[in-house]
């Protein structure tokens, strides 16, 4: 945890850098979804757009978590709480594997 004046001044620069990265990430999300030349996979929305969009979103979310929420240097207790929540969350998505169709491997997303 930053406590001295110098450390805080230094971390302010990091915050501005992350701010810039987040803005770039946001613009990138919109561009890959709206500009035809940047559209990956088939024309229009398909699973590859979903995967790319979620990768960008996850990267942005990680930046917020790590830098703004100080998860890059936190105490152990917090990591345990956070990892526990993520695991439970992942288990909710894991129920998807019990579904009749797979969102990734079946071509079911359009229609």
């Amino acid at each position, binding site marked *: 945890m930053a406590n001295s004046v110098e450390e805080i001044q230094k971390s302010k620069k990091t915050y501005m850098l992350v701010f810039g990265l987040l803005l770039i990430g*946001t613009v990138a*999300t919109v561009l890959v979804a709206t500009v035809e030349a940047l559209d990956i996979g088939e024309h229009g929305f398909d699973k590859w757009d979903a995967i790319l969009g979620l990768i960008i979103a996850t990267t942005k979310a990680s930046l917020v978590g790590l830098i703004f929420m100080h998860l890059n240097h936190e*105490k152990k*207790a917090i990591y345990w709480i956070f990892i526990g*929540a993520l695991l439970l969350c992942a288990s909710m998505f894991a129920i998807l594997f019990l579904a009749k*169709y797979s969102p990734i491997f079946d071509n079911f997303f359009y229609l």
Partner: protein
Amino acid sequence: MEIPYIVNARKDTGLFNAKIAIWLFLASEVMLFGGFFSAYVFLRLGADYPWPERTLPVLPGLINTFVLIGSSVTVVFAWAALKLRNWRQFQIYMWITILCALLFMVLKGVEYNVKFHHQAVRLDDYSVVEGHLAYYDGTHIEKNRINIQLTEGSTIVYNNLRFHAKWVEEILAEAKAAGATLKLAADVKGAEGYSDEKETYFKAGAPLTVELLEKIAKAQISARNHNQTLRSKALADAWEIAKPKHPGQSDWEYSDKVSIDEKAIKPKLLTDILGATFKVDKSFEVSFKPRDVKEGAEQSKLRDDTVINGTLLPSPMEFHYMDAIDFQYLVMKAEKKGIKPEVAIANSWLMQNDPFVREIWAWHEAEITKLRQRLKDDYKLDEKGEPNRVPTHKEMYRIGWKEFAKYGEEKHKIDLSGTDKLKEEFMGPNYNARNPDEKEATSHNSNEEASHGHDSHAPLTFPHLSIPREQIGFASKFAPAWNTYYAIYFTITGLHGLHVVGGAIVLAYYLFFGRRMYDENPEWLCNRVEVGGLFWHFVDLVWIFVFPILYLM
């Protein structure tokens, strides 16, 4: 009493207590939103209708993303300013944060408002029409009501217990305007009070009033109570008599031999009121909102169980502006039945009955042909000779308001200023500017003209459309009722919006009431702002997922 560990770290956790607390709370929030996102995936995979992908306005969503990310930065700067003991700077950053929250909610409010005023209809053949119902007539009205004709001899049957007073008054007002009266068709027998065994009569010919219906309902409740008390007492008496006759036996062994003496009790019972029938003596019309009535050709039923025996009149849903035609659902149904999409579309009610739909559809098909060719030229064919890229289902089978606007621009040379076009990105189509010569007042006054408003001389980008009631399969505003997509959209964004409001309130509290704590124990306030900031970052983090998933996928 001193609160422990507000500034100093606890030895076992290495943290001040509030931080552990907020992280436990955020952990539960992660699971809450995670649950909703997994619900979204399930709904999307299980949808039995074409999922409305990329349907929300991107620009407001994008601005909201910038706003939230910006406020995330300012809140962490506010915390840093406190750490450096700079109150003035803290105030500035916190103010920006709160104004960002406000701006976010305003944009969200505009987005919701547009949806709540935009109508969608699914016809019986599964084609979907979207548009705007409101006509301007001094005040805005919607021509979307169920009209029922009552003639001499028609009846309205009220339920014995419940009725909605407002509807009774509406019917009475219509009757009065036409000089008609509603009178009780036959005597209704009923008790007046709980212990009163005498029966009073509501005489045939009594005029319909709310008070009369109240009295009848009360009489029915009294009769029911009276009869129930009598029966309970008779059954208790029967047991009293039966018990000594079966000594040493358990109750259940002879319970089949215990019963009420129906013959003895019958004369004492009060009459059950089955309902009250009122007869009409002169023709008049009544009309109700579609959601309040289940209509039928000769008999309709209101939501309060009142049965109206009258003839259904034409009750079309009048679109003042039609702004989208969507055949995706129709095509999906047709393909399941093995019918060719073109055939299904050509046979749809819209194509058969509306010249404008045929006209814009022909234009749209030409556009799609051009698009198909361009995609082929730009992205070539694969090794099997199939084109690498083809138009999507949505492009092929939906004409959205932007296509309507483009068609209007091409055909009528309607030109909108840049500001007007920018406004459309937030507020939806600008009906007035794109239907320039249309006079609001006349379109309402001359009904005929309005419903047959496809006048080729008037440059209407968004024409009128009148849909007969019997063609309507399901109709709703763009509210959660319309489909599961809007249901989950409102759930997730609404819950997220509540988080924005809640977070802003807490941060505003630090800003406006934090000075005393800052003077007494600045590190304590600093920790509070850090904890409030953690929540704020989380709100931002959720939006980072909400935006691409709901707006761009």
